[in-house]
């Protein structure tokens, strides 16, 4: 039963991903990307990773994609892809290279991952449940102890992103002077 659900999900995910690739309309391709993200969240749920699944929906589908759609609407993009890809030789060779990449990788992964044992996550989670510790507790504890440095660095990263986004997206008047918020309000 689980496998049937899984493979259906597999097919839908690939379909949405192809939608991102082949749609000529930017908004449609963004919606396909949302579909991929939601499918992946479902995939994570099948793997009993509830926390990551919900973060995936909240952060990716909820925040990042809204930002994308916002920018698409803001810039009012009506442009479509013009030349069919197969008419451009560079794209053709790029495609050939990409597909080779995929087949080599898929083959290697299939061959070398075959004969693996049962996934260990179920046992780990059962062990946590027996000790009456929620998984989220372990995750958060690890984050502020073992992974404290990346956690702190993330705050720096977000600061840089905020500064960068403000610098790049702030409006200018004709002479290139920054338009300040106070001026706009006044």
């Amino acid at each position: 039963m689980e496998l049937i659900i899984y493979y259906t999900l597999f097919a839908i995910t690939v379909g949405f991903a192809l939608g991102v690739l082949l749609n000529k309309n930017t908004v449609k391709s963004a919606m396909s990307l949302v579909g991929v993200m939601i499918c992946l969240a479902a995939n994570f749920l099948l793997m009993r990773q509830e926390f990551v699944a919900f973060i995936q929906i909240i952060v990716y589908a909820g925040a990042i994609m809204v930002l994308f759609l916002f920018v698409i609407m803001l810039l009012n993009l009506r442009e479509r892809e013009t030349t069919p890809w197969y008419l451009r030789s560079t794209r053709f060779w790029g495609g050939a290279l990409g597909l080779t990449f995929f087949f080599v990788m898929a083959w290697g992964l299939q061959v070398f991952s075959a004969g693996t044992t049962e996934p260990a996550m179920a046992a780990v989670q059962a062990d946590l449940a027996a000790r009456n510790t929620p998984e989220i507790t372990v995750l958060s504890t690890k984050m502020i102890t073992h992974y404290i440095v990346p956690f702190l660095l993330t705050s720096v990263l977000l600061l840089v992103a905020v500064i960068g986004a403000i610098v790049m997206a702030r409006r200018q008047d004709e002479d290139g002077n920054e338009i300040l918020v106070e001026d706009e309000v006044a």
Partner: protein
Amino acid sequence: MTTLALIQAYVPNIHPAHIMPFLVMLVGAILCLIFDAMSDKQGSRDLLPWVAGSTLVATIMSLLIGFMPYNRLFAEETFRADTFSVLGSITIMLACLLAVIMGPALVSRRNIPSGEFYTLIVFVAFGGMTMALSNELLTAFIALEIMSLSLYVLTGIDRRSSRASEAAFKYFILGAFASAFLVLGIGFIFGATHTTHLHEIAAVLGEGSVDLVNGGAAALNPIWIFVGFALLFVGMCFKLSLAPFHMWAPDVYEGANTPTVVMIATSSKIAAFALMVHIVAALARWDLFAEGATYLVGFVALVSMIWGNLGALVQSNFKRMMAYSSVAQTGYMALALMVLIALPGQLEGAKLAAAEEAIKNAIVLYLVGYTVMSALALGIAWLIGGEGHMAGYRGLVFRNPIAATGMAVAMFSLVGIGFTPPTIGFMGKFYLFKEAVQYNFTALAAIAVVTSVISAFYYLNLVVTMFMREETEEAGVRLACMREQTFRLASSDALTRVAMASCTALIFLLGFFPNSLFLIADAIKEGFLR
């Protein structure tokens, strides 16, 4: 167990003194921001470069004083400070300092938000230092993103120039593309070894098996590690602008403002190389890995040396030539990286450790040398306004003999081999090629020498243009025009001249006494505090 008990059972093991350089930088960056927000007149904003500059100098001091334990893991086993990473960090700081010095001239004329400009330069240095010091892949990745995001924004910060925004766009898209490769690579290495800490990865690979969570051990899966390293290496190749992943470099060098180009050419490469050397040192202990990775890295080094040098031959724009030249120069360093990977197959025990140390020293010498040389070339181009077409350099020696001489020194040093007095470029290449020959990569070393000879054509072509061609009206107009576009600021120019003079001095100093760099390294090892 309650949450509190869990946390109390495991207090983060970070000594505040150990992370002093990081704290200094962060405080400096925040100070820049606050200073910018508090000052409402242009006059007080002129002090901003001093705040940023003194932050960088203070960081260099704190690195030299030796707050960090030498060659031991610290801060939750996230960082390790060895000679390579500390010397690299200091060089990163110096390159960013040059950008700060060059900054005021750019900021005042092009109407660039100065607070953000200097803060982002400090963040470039912060990201680079964190990356060079990190012993953990996730930390390194986040540090890389801090550095890259700052560089993307700095590239496009001159928003009135559509060239700059296009360069920022290209740099951003290819950078994001590369970081996706990096993430997948880290994922596979994590899956194979169950950890992202480099010392634990090295231990797992040394044992040849990985402990499972529910008891027992499983054999390592070679394909995961290979795929992981290959993806990670491809991602780093983008950041290092190694061929065939260098296509962004000429465009970004041409479109970005020169202070940013100095950082892209030097800081980001030093940081990425330090990380690569650490990753390779952790992975190379596993003999299965060494065989495959030698070919991969060797191929990239070969293509970079050939493509970079041939590409530079046909360029007529100075910055584009510097971009291709940087591809080639990074290729020479990748050659040494390949030797580093291949070493464990040839040597053992104490000999291996000594040989690895020698190669790392050769790479760091070359990195420092490359930084000084390209900083000199780009800085002089910035001073005389020669960032555009190289026809502007015709007969420069008659108009500005000092600048022409400095540029000639940089070019001779970049060529490296041949009839020049010992420059840092010569010494760096000599050590790199010597290591390659010593460990039976004679063919590749020969190709490296041949491509260096090819590089002499375009480097010396510029020298010939400056010294032996008649000065034309057109050349003078070209430079004057560029100068007008890039405006001048006396104080910034004077400091830049001082920096250029010290770069020239360093080229000869390190050329005659390459070991003096390792005296600094020894001082770092001892530390003033230890």
